[in-house]
């Protein structure tokens, strides 16, 4: 049951669009920075396959420039 956190860098001017797009996905929580072009994304999934699929979905969002993992825990 993985829990992972990421730093998501939006393309210039796309922070709000990216926030909305990730928020629309299940198993995701987004915390946008107030004063920088950066979002924190936390994912909480049931298994590795689901996690990989979710990551792929996030990476396919057009307003996303870069997704970098910070920490990963497995609570099983």
């Amino acid at each position, binding site marked *: 049951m993985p*829990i992972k956190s990421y*730093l998501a860098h939006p393309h210039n001017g796309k922070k709000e669009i990216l926030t909305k797009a990730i928020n629309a996905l299940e198993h995701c929580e987004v*915390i946008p920075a*107030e004063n920088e072009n950066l979002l*924190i994304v*936390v994912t909480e999934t049931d298994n590795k396959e689901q996690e990989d699929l979710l990551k792929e979905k996030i990476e396919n969002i057009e307003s996303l420039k870069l997704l970098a993992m*910070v*920490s990963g825990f497995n*609570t099983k």
Partner: protein
Amino acid sequence: MYTSLTNRRSFIKKMAIMSAMTAAATMFPGILFAEEQEEKLPKGGNLDWKKAPCRFCGVGCGVLVGVENGKAVAVKGDPKSPVNKGLCCVKGYHSVMSIYGKDRLTKPLVKKNGKYVETSMKEALDLIASKMKTTIKDHGKDAVSIYGSGQWTIPDGYVASKLFKGCIGTNNVEANARLCMASAVTGFLTSFGLDEPMGCYEDIDHADVFILWGNNMAEMHPVLFSRLLDQRLKRGVKIIDFATRTTRTSMAADKSIIFQPQTDLAVANAICYEIIKNGWVNKSFVEKHCSFNKGLTNMGYGLEDKYKFKDKPEKIDFEAYKTFLEDYTPEKVERISGVSAKDIKYMAAYYGDPNKKVMSLWCMGMNQHTRGTWINNLVYNIHLLTGKISTPGNSPFSLTGQPSACGTVREVGTLTHKLPHGVVMKKEHREHAAKIWDVPVENIDPKPTYHTVEMFRALDRGDIKFMWIQVTNPMVTMPKLKRYRDACKKEGRFIVVSDIYPTPTTDIADVILPSAMWIEREGMYGNSERRTQYFEQMIQPSGEAMSDTWQIVEVAKRLGYEKQFYYKEETHIEEIYNEYRRHHEGKKHAMAPLEVLKTQPGAQWPYVDGKSTKWRFNSEYDPACSNGEKFHFYGKPDGKAVIWQRPYEPAPEVPDKDYPFWLCTGRVIEHWHTGSMTRRIPVLHKAMPHAYVELNPEEAKQMQIRTGDSVKLTTKRGEIILPASVNERGVPEKGQVFVPFFDENMLINDITLDAFCPISKQPDYKKCSVKVEKV
């Protein structure tokens, strides 16, 4: 205590958020997240939160450690700590994970026929005592030595000094702080007669301008740097980064000024020239509180064995000093330093403006310098000429790198020439120590023996036969490392290493003792702002691990010093601290009682009449001032601070046609020093898995080197291959490369130079010449 899975998942999720916020803060200093999100972070749950100073750097952040079922499981910043006000950096948040690495040393190991064999702690301690006895009998007391650390707790260093200096009678006591703080110490002693900053972190809340001298504070002191950024948001303060390379600090600063290596000496003199030329000298302050000295020049660089140097201070007057500075006009210095005259004048104008409070901050850039004492003196000159010192916000501030470099190495005095109060050379200081230690005064040798580099050279020559190394990793950190690694392996040497994990230093040990780490035992650290902080034992040590303090006490008893080492196991930390406090009695250095340290996040010495002293030498705050004036620099017999005439002199090894680049080494935010703890924290290890060489992007392009390509670095000491880093974290100037030293698999110190400051004996890890090739 029961924790449901839901609670645990919720807690872990919050930890994941916290890790990401911390990582974000290191990339974007000053980044803010909505308060309601921060409020979601763990606040306690079922955990038992206990206070401690952080295990890692010299900032000395107060942390709260969450303990559950006998295990330390979480860390958060202590909101009550005036140091960090609830903040933590990425290393601090993950610090407890470094306790639980899979390869913790849990049993003593003795090398037999080339292999390590497990033994009992009793047998290992018996063997160490027996080796010490026979070495002293066969080769004399100066054949045994101890090499400790700024990560020693105060009791560790105190019992080491008492055993070696007081009981055995050798001054072969050194610590790795010689490699990081010695120039700061000699800078303070020569300018003020007393060690450690006169100001405190609260200066940050008052200063208008911050000038960082060769100090990548955003990565090395991130919590303090975030306090600077916070002040910029609140009050619009200015931050100027004066450095040799572009770093995250440069990127976050209001202005980045780059200088050529070693020329900070010339720029500091040029700032003083400008201050005098423009009439910005605080004349009444200088007349009342300063004297002028010059010392010897062309001192050499300590490159040869048994090198000796003693400065000969000579009084001069203001006019002579003013004439000396004529060689340092901004225009002349521009040619040496690469810093434009305009930028020199820009910095001088801030220092000279009577309406601006200025804080200068520095760490390794000024200390790891073959003229480290001089550059410390020169920055004090600027503050003394303008009278911007010892008042809130006006503060020359030397930052430390280790959690107790100040508390243990500098205050307990675990350097060859030092005693807990004073120096071995002075009879009254020896008498004071001997009385408290309950040893004959004749036991304490009046002559210092070896500073760190010379101690390892003595081991190489065979003058030292036995060395006990605690809480440090010299087989990664010594400059010109290969010589000293080979020295440790020589026949007839006996090396004991106390540590928590296997390292390149345990690899050369004859006996390895497993040490109890940080909150597995009780102790105190002292940070950069004279703050002593206590931590209780929160968890049981791993396996048979024992505190470094108690290891030394056990050996001392076996050597026959039961009378001096009378401490009881259950109360020894309290007994040792109370004994140690006696050395510092009096208004100039009184330490807070233990019961005070137990109830609050530390206290700053001098601790007099139940109060910490925030600003020394200022009679408004410092009860030791007694001259009836606003300021009293009582460390000097005449009560005056010294403005030093110190010239610019070049580095011992400069780029030439064979070795055309400067090599600078340093740290990274993810790893604590040699990485022996932080590389065992998966998140940090993954974030920064190995060392690299940073290249200037234009030069990398010319050499067809891209990030990840293998690059060979060659100096006169050897060669090493590292992956390239181009336009990533830091950007060196043309003609310079940078390599971090945390990676034991890529030992950059194999090729660095063991030149040192002749006064402080601190090596310069920032400058030697190197050839760079793509392979």
